[in-house]
């Protein structure tokens, strides 16, 4: 797999044994499955392309309104609309493979078993060799537990990981995507890493509500939604910071982290990287600037290079070594 080398600077990064030419990805659900952004840039140039979370069956998603703009962010309630894993493999994954993209496939299920079924279908796909890893979106409602999301509970999160792990080759990175809406994100990280996750993506959206003050009712059809965008960046950096600190302190196993939340520029991406992320994803800001993922890649690379580093991996988690306690 190629490595992006610019004037001697090595932009590559590693994700559980898989080397990516650069650390910038799309975020699940913010880039559809590639064709739309291909009109703005070549998706194969990204470190990886992260697909919209796919479940077993086709899903219509929720009714509308599905979104509300918020200060420096937005609230969404899409409801995991998607074609189902079979159509996804036949059409979307095949298209991405043909483009030469490295694909991190995001999957989910309403039960731990459904997660495993989706993984099994994916594994069986003809386009499997385009897959560089599987991102497991555990921030979705657990049918068995009054719709509480899996990611709120270490036990159910771990169970999902165990079942998904059984369906996939040992060397396939499995990345658990965590929710920030928990009292102790380190304990969730510990649980999923203990159950076979290769790495972690942090963070998914924060639960929010917006009231339409003309109609005096919740603006989203689904009442609550997920808050994302630059507004939440400090929460994402905090989550990455805390989990990385726990790794450095030996409290939980060391594993790669993918940082996501509010990245609009290379500078923003560097915040997450310096806090401990080995790679980053650009989500909501893609709606503002469809070229954002590739732009962030270029800005991040240039910035790290300008600081005198010769390889990207040197800045991962660097802020932990530079704390200035007053």
């Amino acid at each position, binding site marked *: 797999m190629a490595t992006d080398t610019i004037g001697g600077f090595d932009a590559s990064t590693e994700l559980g044994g898989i080397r990516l030419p650069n650390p910038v990805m799309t975020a699940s659900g913010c880039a559809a499955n590639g064709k739309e952004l291909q009109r703005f840039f070549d998706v194969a140039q990204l470190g990886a392309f992260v697909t919209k979370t796919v479940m077993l069956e086709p899903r219509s998603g929720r009714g509308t309104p599905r979104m509300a703009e918020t200060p420096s962010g937005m609230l969404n309630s899409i409801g995991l609309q998607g074609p189902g894993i079979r159509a996804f493999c036949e059409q979307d994954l095949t298209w991405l493979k043909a483009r030469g993209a490295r694909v991190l496939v995001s999957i989910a299920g309403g039960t731990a078993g459904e997660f495993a079924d989706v993984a099994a279908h994916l594994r069986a796909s003809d386009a499997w060799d385009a897959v560089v890893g599987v991102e497991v979106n555990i921030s979705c409602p657990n049918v068995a537990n009054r719709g509480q999301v899996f990611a709120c509970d270490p036990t159910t999160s771990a169970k999902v990981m165990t079942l998904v792990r059984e369906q996939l080759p040992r060397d396939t990175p499995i990345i658990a995507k965590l929710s920030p809406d928990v009292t102790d994100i380190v304990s969730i990280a510990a649980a999923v890493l203990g159950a076979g996750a290769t790495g972690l993506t942090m963070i998914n959206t924060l639960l929010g509500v917006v009231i339409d003050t003309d109609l005096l009712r919740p603006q989203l059809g689904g009442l609550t939604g997920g808050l994302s965008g630059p507004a939440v960046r400090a929460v994402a950096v905090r989550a990455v910071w805390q989990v990385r600190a726990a790794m450095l302190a030996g409290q939980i196993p060391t594993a790669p982290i993918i940082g996501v939340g509010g990245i609009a520029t290379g500078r923003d991406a560097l915040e997450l990287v310096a806090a401990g992320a080995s790679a980053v994803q650009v989500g909501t800001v893609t709606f*503002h600037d469809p070229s954002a993922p590739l732009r962030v890649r270029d800005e991040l690379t240039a910035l790290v290079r300008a600081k005198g580093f010769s390889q990207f991996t040197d800045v991962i988690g660097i802020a932990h070594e530079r704390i200035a306690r007053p």
Partner: protein
Amino acid sequence: MRDVVQVDAEVIATRRVGAYHHITFVAPGVAELARPGQFVALSVGGDSSANLLRRCFSIHKVSPSGTYGGTVDLVISAVGPGTEWLSGLRAHDTTSMVGPLGRPFPLPKEPVATVLVGGGYGSAPLFWLAEALRERGCRVDMVLGAATESRLFGVVEARRAADGVTVTTDDGSMGHRGWVSDVLPAIIADHGVGVVYACGPMGMLKSVTDVAAAGGAVAQVAVEESMACGVGVCMTCVMPVAGNDGVTRMVRSCVEGPVFRGDRVRWDAFEGGVCRVPEDALGATAMRAH
């Protein structure tokens, strides 16, 4: 060849027209690619803006090779922070423009009588469409409707662009007092209209669809759903539309629209400002499970 561009668009002229702001942008590339019915997505608020999402506007007209390079004209109604900011732009201010976006109005292959119905600023894209239709030998009638006179757009322009013009206002301040759907049946019947094109609020589009069907015409309606990205990646702008296979899907109005055949839209799903997923829509079953 690229079919969409992302450019820093510069304002070269801005003027008030009734309740609206008519702005001309220099936007190289957009003008050259655009067709009637397509739209553009603009950034709002400048570099330090708290408004992250783009705002979408129908293209009113384009001049692919003006003095300044290609220009794009928009008609903007100030209803919230983004449109207010845009309305305050002055000459030489710039903002990022992505476009052209969406599918244009389909043009008939044969000359056929048409009616173009615009509600409020919804008339903005219709003059350009009228030109294209007349070039193909189609008769063009226009119906412009609004709540009140100041909310009509392009009445004078319409007289030049169309073979017949009818104006309606809810309050009777100009033209017929009433709705566009009041005057539409007669026009369809009088001229043997084959296609009705419409752009405006959802309620109007639904009744235009009904009237067209009753008069044996096809309705092509340009919808205006709330959009976060305009380019097909966010899935916020969906609405239930039946496909050729008869199956209803929640389709993105930004890439599969904004123009839809009126009789394909599941108007029954819209009510009280929300749109539910019809029970028979593809993937609705899986939603009920969780």
